[in-house]
């Protein structure tokens, strides 16, 4: 068991957006969170690296265990946690730095100064993100010079460079063209061997193509959670059925 959520409730001020989610996610699998906008899937994703803590009015209750340790325990160091739980965002958000420095960022903020080590790590991470061939000759160029899809893979490389064990992806391909999307999906599939991946997506085909398990959220509840194939071919709940056949959402 890699991740275990136990009755997780989240509220913004008086508005409850997650009403008690319990689920467990196995190591080295890809789990997709699907559901209509505002169903709480992104909020739930942000519980795993405690990004919700940045919002003043946000309150998280319940328990989340990663590797059998409670990440909301008072002794947990939030910065340490985020170093082991990487995140990729909806829109590519490279820093206004060179391609190289973007990937080296995580190492630098960890105080790594060994130049050789940084170079090796950066190359390794960019290769992991299947971007090396495209950028190896222009590492010193600004990250903004890359295409949207390349920028997103750069952001994945940036997250991988510090070797997290979990990768959270918040609709990572929603701002990209179909070809870039395919590349990201392939990448997700290949990264599964070394990382536990959770991906939030609007796109049900994407969920079927990339994930082992799928969780369907609706109005702050986890409606159904099953093997991806089972959930899409033989859903047990009516709501899931309605959603995957496109009757709402």
């Amino acid at each position, binding site marked *: 068991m890699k991740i275990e959520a136990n009755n997780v409730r989240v509220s913004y001020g008086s508005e409850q957006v997650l009403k008690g989610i319990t689920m467990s996610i196995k190591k080295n699998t890809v789990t997709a969170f699907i559901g209509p906008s505002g169903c709480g899937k992104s909020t739930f994703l942000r519980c795993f690296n405690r990004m919700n803590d940045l919002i003043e009015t946000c309150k998280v209750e319940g328990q989340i265990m990663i590797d059998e340790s409670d990440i909301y325990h008072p002794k947990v160091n939030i910065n340490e946690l985020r170093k082991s739980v990487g995140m990729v*965002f909806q829109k590519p958000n490279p*820093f206004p730095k060179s391609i190289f420095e973007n990937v080296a960022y995580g190492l630098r903020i960890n105080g790594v100064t060994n130049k050789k080590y940084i170079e090796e790590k950066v190359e390794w991470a960019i290769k992991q993100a299947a971007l090396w061939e495209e950028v190896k000759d222009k590492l010193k160029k600004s990250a903004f010079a890359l295409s949207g899809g390349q920028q997103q893979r750069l*952001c994945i490389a940036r997250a991988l460079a510090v070797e997290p064990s979990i990768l959270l992806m918040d609709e990572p391909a929603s701002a990209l063209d179909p070809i870039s999307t395919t590349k990201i999906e392939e990448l997700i599939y290949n990264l599964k061997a070394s990382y536990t991946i959770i991906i939030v997506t609007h796109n049900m085909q994407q969920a079927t193509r990339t994930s082992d398990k799928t969780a369907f959220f609706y109005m702050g509840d986890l409606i159904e959670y099953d093997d991806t194939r089972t959930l899409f071919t033989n859903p047990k709940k009516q709501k899931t059925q309605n959603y995957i056949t496109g009757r709402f959402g």
Partner: protein
Amino acid sequence: MRKGEKFIEAFLFGCSALTLLTTVGIILVLSFETIGFFKDVSLIEFLTDTQWTPLFSNKRFGIMPLLAGTFLVTAISLVVAVPLGLVIAVYLSEYAPGWFREIVKPVLEILAAIPTVVYGYFALVYVTPWLQELFPDQVGGFNALSPGIVMGIMILPLISSLSEDALYAVPKSLKEASFAMGATKLQTVRQVLIPAAFSGISVSIVLALSRAIGETMIVAIAAGQQPRLTANPLVPIETATTYIVQVTMGDVPYDSLEYKTIFAVGMTLFVITLVLNNVSFWLKKRYTQAYR
């Protein structure tokens, strides 16, 4: 009806064209008298002589001492205002709770609304005596340090406000990306936000610099009236603006060479601030393009 509309439009156009006329007027007036000045004084002397004594019997016309005074006070003000203003901007945009920011930002902007003659009073009556206590027997009654510090306070809100706006304009997604990597706020500020907001921050500094160079009353009151080519902040000096005030307060006949000197000095000031302003426009254009 139609005719009336046309007339109104012509009137409105005339009003906005008046601003062009103002600029033309400034340039013409300054050029006219400055050319008159350079009929009597060579440009070489103006730029290279190290003495400025047009009001003495032994007249020398080197602008350098006045510019040295101007830049000395300006440099001191920037030394005070830039670090302080940046730290305040970072604090208000990244660390302070919302209510604190809502209150403190406008309160700090009060500093920019205070008439400069009040700062002059503060410099001469409070800061100078305080400096004299701090460094006994070294600080003159007039000096560059005291007005420099006070001017730094005057331009502080310019830097803190505009830099805060620039930091605030950095897309939230960059901040999130950095926090998600496990960076602290300080690391995020230093490595992501300040580089990303760099041109906006430089705009604020250039504008503050331009304001400081053109500032008159603080230095006229507290810096003295002794043109002097020095980097010593503890002795009396004279800035370009103070010289203009000094001459116009006296009884100088029109068309005398002394009268023309103030226009030559004014021209110098005008050119310097014009260049600085356009540098800031250029920087601003660059940073509005950065995230489009």
